[in-house]
């Protein structure tokens, strides 16, 4: 995480001013709770910057600010996070978010460590989206997140995996390990799963997914 931040810090023209962060904080903070920006604040912020709350760029912001809870930012997260990004106005912030997202996405296609940033982003999403005190991300959210994050890169896998989860009607969600392994699978296995090396270590969920894909191919 640290290393990645370093990469982007060098590229940015200069840190954002603490003043800008404070301005935004004062504008959007929860009137009932001085220590956080609540869902309403986030919605207002989204409207002002011109993005949907469900837009991937908002997720990028949450990731860069290392937010711990969906729909909320704490003061510490807000100020520490803004200190590391370069923007002193909303349009600048929006541009920075777009650039960061593009760079992350671009890096993800590389097989070397350039993909680490996206991997981090992806891992963050599981942590960020799952309900409090739960280890698993429910399937519906998982599918939504996958289609938002992974579809631009590996649309076929996401489509098939979503179909598989729907068919299985899986109750107990996706745990962190399965979530991360799906990303590894997307990167290393072809869309039709023909080169899936069953060395035994893949989670059972993914074994079954591959079987499902191969069955479907046979069915055709």
């Amino acid at each position, binding site marked *: 995480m640290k290393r990645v931040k370093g990469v982007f810090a060098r590229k940015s023209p200069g840190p954002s001013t603490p003043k800008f962060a404070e301005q935004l904080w004062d504008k959007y903070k929860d009137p009932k709770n001085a220590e956080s920006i609540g869902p309403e604040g986030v919605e207002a912020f989204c409207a002002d910057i011109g993005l949907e709350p469900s837009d991937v760029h908002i997720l990028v912001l949450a990731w860069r600010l290392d937010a711990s809870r969906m729909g909320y930012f704490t003061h510490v997260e807000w100020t520490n996070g803004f200190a590391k990004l370069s923007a002193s106005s909303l349009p600048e912030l929006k541009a920075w978010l777009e650039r960061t997202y593009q760079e992350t996405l671009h890096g993800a296609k590389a097989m070397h460590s350039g993909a680490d940033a996206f991997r981090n982003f992806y891992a963050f999403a599981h942590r960020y989206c799952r309900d409090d005190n739960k280890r698993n991300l429910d399937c519906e959210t998982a599918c939504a997140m996958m289609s938002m994050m992974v579809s631009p890169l590996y649309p076929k896998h996401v489509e098939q995996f979503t179909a598989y989860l729907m068919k299985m009607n899986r109750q107990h969600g996706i*745990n962190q*390990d*399965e979530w991360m*392994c799906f990303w590894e699978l997307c990167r290393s296995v072809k869309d039709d799963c023909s080169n899936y090396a069953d*060395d035994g*270590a893949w*989670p*059972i969920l993914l074994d079954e997914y591959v079987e499902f894909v191969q069955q479907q191919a046979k069915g055709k």
Partner: protein
Amino acid sequence: MRARQAGTGGAAKKLVIKPLRAPSLPADFELATWHKLQAAVRAVHEKRPVESSLEELYRAVEDLCTHKMAAATYARLEHECEQHTERALRQLASASSSDPSAFLARVHGAWLDHCQQSLMIRSIFLVLDRTYPLQTAGVRSLWDMGLQHFRHHLLALPDVLVKTVGGVLLHVQRERQGEVIERSLLANLVRMFNALQVYAERFEGPLLEDTAAFYAAEATRLLDACAVGDYLRHVDTRLGDEAGRVHAYLHASTRKPLLAAVHAALLTPHAEALLERGFDALVEEARHADLRLMYSLYSHVGKLRLLKEAWAAHVKRVGSALVLDVEGEAGLIPRLLELKRACEELHVRAFERAEPFGYALREALEAVVNARANRPAELLAKFFDAQLRANAKGGGEEDVEHVLDAGISLFRYLSGKDLFEAFYKKDLAKRLLLGRSAHVDAEKLLVSKLKAECGAGFTNKLEGMFKDCELSAELTAAFHAAAPPLGLSDIELSTHVLTTGFWPPYPPIELNLPPQLCALQERFTAFYLGKHSGRRLTWVHALGHCVVRAQFAARAHELQLSTAQTVVCLLFNDAQQRALSLREIATGCGLEDKELRLTLQSLACGKVRVLVKEPRGREVDDGDAFSFHDGLQHKLHRIRVNTIQLRETAEEAEQTELKVCVDRQYQIDAAIVRTMKARKALSHTLLLTELYEQLKFPLTPVDLKKRIESLIDREYLERDPRAPSSYRYLA
């Protein structure tokens, strides 16, 4: 020469010694002598009587040799013999005879003549034969010289040789087809081939080719026509015939390649087909002789592996069918034992106790016993239970031991030994506590056998159970000795104090004990805690039973009841012949509803009806009323009222199984963590290998993967980000 002394008066004579003068030979000595000999040689060749006496001829040769004419004589003789041999063989070649037998006879005649004549000539020229070839390098003895020329001229006439070989082979063929042939003629010809050194190169090859072709044709003809056993016997007969043939008229060196050719034609290419076609039938019909023959034949052609595999496959197929037969699973264990016995008998009687076959059998039986998860373990435990139960029919102690040994031999193959233990323990507990064990000796014998198989850890708890029983007996005696009569002396209490953990868990039953029993129970508790302070006693009513005296209209009976039944029955003492409703009974005895209904059903709807239910029926309903059945009649004094044991059913077995499965999960988790803690990082494959070594119950990779994933989720492990199929231990 001796000097002679002159007479006394005579003048002395001079003694003269002259040099020795060799007698001069006549000029034509050599030629004349040779002519004499030549005439004799020709006479021999033409089978005429020799004119000169043999003695004279012998001397003549000796003279020639003495006068250093050996070389010339040898050369002349050689020339003479060679010419004759050539002539004789040409005669053979020109004699066109269509009948191979006649031709063979002629060849044989020529050969015999040659031999006889050579011998005769050698006798005459014995001195030459004994001196000249020995002293001169590169010159052969007369016999060899004769053979050499015979061979040379025979080879120069390929027709003769080919015809001869062909004739011999034809005879062999005829004999194979069942005709009687003149074996001595063949023997002589073969000896001739051998003497002429054409056996190996001119005769053996065609013989083997012929053999191969003959038997290959025979194999295709017979394979479909006759049963496998018959075919094998036929092969064996053929092998015997060929060996006899070698003995009778072929050269001993041919034995091996000839038999190999038979094997190669009759057996090697058909080994698999034969197994496929008839092996199962042979085993099923227990045709040990045929199978033994098969074993010995296959061992000669190096196809034992096929036979072994076929056998293992057969055992697996038959055995798995038994194990997977859900309908007939009650008799599974005896049937498996019978299968095993049959296999072992076969192993001894047909397969010479060969080690690889033994291994294959063990492997196959292991696969059979574990063909179905869990159930065989349960059935085996039940099998032992049936043997050890008091009412088991059975012979003497030796028989029991024999049967137990057989059972243990199956137990050895069982991979789910923990499951077996759980079921066995349950049954053992029942036998011990309800006094249903036939012989304690047999029980202990079996435990010692299990100990020998699996070590002390496995039987620790079982032994603990025996120990508990022994201690309890002592304790009960001590309690009776110490019990001061409290007006309760008519109630005799016998207790088993069970150590928690050794025994299977029993569900607690809530009930209100009548005051008499309560007092007794309290006294025992006080007595026990007085002996062993700091312990906790829990009363397991589910296992208790009482003998109760009851006065019926006809006579008094003793009723053997469970504690719950007793509590219910005692309520009717206070009821004064009145009927009690279900609700009243429930409040009186404090039994849980389901348990109460079962108890009432056993008392009022079973074979022996101590209570009468109103209205009648098999089920207990809410509005039913019960009263004491005064008119009970039974021929026995002591009556056992069976409890209805819903729990001794599929549900209970399932629970035991479930418990074992949960235990297994813990064991897997522990093994994974232990291994990973020791190794820090390990690839998936290596980890699985380690686990399979450590864990002694049946496992699938998926079982293990589930546990690994669970441990990753609980952050005991993580995947190595650099090597996705490796794990790292998280301290």
